[in-house]
């Protein structure tokens, strides 16, 4: 009797949750059909050489990319593409929290892909993070994550990237970024990198006003527009004398 009661209780909890899951996937499929299918194709098969409304419509297949990729692209606003044909960039997030969850569930259902990662920066080492970031990331993203240029695209600054998004991007390699598998960068190492990226948002600026953390360019601007201007001003004051026009 007690067992039957427990079963009923469980069913009351699990069934709605399960329905919520499948409900998410269904809702996700509807949203997908509205916003994504033109480029990513039915069932996420991808589209090559497509056109629609006079514009090129092409997009990679989504089978097996998993919740990880969908979560990244949707939460950063990379997708839907702000401008078709241009590099995907962080932009407006078109969907609400529920809609994102629905879409993520739908994309995750299109094959076996990695789940949304849960990085633990507090378990990482900041000095290992700096080392790893220098080796794998600084060439594009700049040593203090201020972003950088490469032929064909721009590596964005990471000041708005959440720990989850950093962990996701490492695995996906969005757009032109390389992708790093768990074999190359282990989850423990990801923790360290995330910890460093968090640090880079507010690094040690014991020298004063940080002026952008990118080094000599803003330093030169300060030299000319602050120091040189001030000193020329002093020259003007001292060089003129009272009683002379």
């Amino acid at each position, binding site marked *: 009797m007690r067992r039957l009661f427990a079963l009923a209780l469980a069913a009351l909890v699990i069934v709605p949750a399960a329905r919520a899951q499948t409900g998410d996937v269904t809702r996700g499929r509807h949203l997908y059909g509205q916003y994504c299918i033109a480029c990513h194709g039915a069932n996420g098969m991808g589209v090559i050489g497509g056109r629609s409304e006079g514009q090129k419509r092409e997009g*990679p297949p989504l089978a097996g990319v998993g919740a990880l990729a969908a979560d990244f692209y949707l939460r950063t606003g990379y997708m839907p593409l702000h401008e078709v044909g241009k590099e995907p960039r962080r932009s407006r997030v078109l969907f609400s929290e529920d809609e994102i969850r629905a879409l993520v569930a739908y994309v995750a259902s299109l094959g076996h892909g990695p789940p949304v990662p849960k990085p633990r920066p507090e378990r990482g080492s900041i000095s290992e993070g700096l080392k790893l970031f220098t080796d794998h990331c600084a*060439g*594009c993203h700049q040593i203090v994550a201020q972003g*950088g240029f490469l*032929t064909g695209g721009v590596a964005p600054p990471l000041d708005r990237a959440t720990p989850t998004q950093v962990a996701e991007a490492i695995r996906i*390699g969005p757009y032109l970024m390389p992708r790093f598998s768990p074999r*190359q960068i282990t989850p423990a190492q990801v923790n360290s990198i995330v910890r460093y990226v968090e640090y880079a948002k507010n690094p040690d600026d014991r020298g004063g006003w940080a002026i952008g953390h990118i080094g000599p360019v803003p330093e030169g601007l300060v030299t000319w527009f602050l120091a040189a201007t001030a000193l020329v001003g002093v020259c003007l004051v001292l060089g003129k004398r009272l009683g002379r026009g």
Partner: protein
Amino acid sequence: MGRARAFLVAAAVLLVGRRRKRRLRPGEREPIVAVPAPKSPDAELVAIGLLFAAAACGIAFVVIYVLDRLPAQTQLLGLALGLAFVFLTAALTVTAKWLVPNEELEDDYPEHEHPEEQERIAQVVEESGLTRRKLFALALGAAGGSIGLALLTPVASLGPALHLARFYLTPWRRGTRLVNEQGEPYRADEIEEGSFYTAFAEGADKEGLASSIVVVRLPRNELELPPENAGFDARGILAFSKICTHAGCAIALYRKPMFAPTDPQPALICPCHYSTFEPATGGKVIFGPAGRKLPMLPLTIDAQGFLRAKGNFDSPVGPSWWGVRMKKPTS
């Protein structure tokens, strides 16, 4: 005590200046416009106040220095010292403008030249009593020139300026294993597509330009290696020098297409001047100021599955120089 005080007053007066005496000293020029120093006790007070403010800032600096627990020490120290000098500047400006006579005087510019003296110098030299002047001059020049050259010659010991063999030397030879920064050897099966790996010659100094390489993997059907690089890949794994052939920066960027139909092809890019090298074609320069392709290291996989070099680079590593195309790298 009176003398010491007087000394201090004298020093202050020397700095601040005093009213000029009206009588002319012998040889002194008559000032054309002598603006007598206006009596401005207010200005004097301002200057004195500013000097005391400067003194306070100076003391503040010492106090801040001594106090250990203060946060933002560098900022406070800079502010204290900087403000001390700001007040000093202000005090001196007030002095210059209001406390010191601002005379505008005239003076003659010095002579353009002194023809008589020039003449006398020339005479002295000419009357030196030498008969074989030109020969003497030649001999002197020869002695000076060759002694000068001799004295400069030891500079050549600063480096191997005349023996450039080292510029072709690399630590790679047939069988050298590829290792990571910690010295662990790379297995071929851990090199995945879409990423890039930094490797070094096993046992070599990592800082040597020829030691570091970047390793990528491409699908075999995407390779279009030129004849001189035929067979350089190990099942699609490619290795190139990590040092840009333009100006020697480390090639720390790898661009991989997410979606081949729309995205640019894989490329290794240097962050200094954006020289872009295409691994699929053996490191050809496809953009940027590099004048030379990226040196490629032929790879093979040994029986245990580790990556090894099959030989040396196809060309010397690092920035170009006059002999860079004259010889192949040596081990």
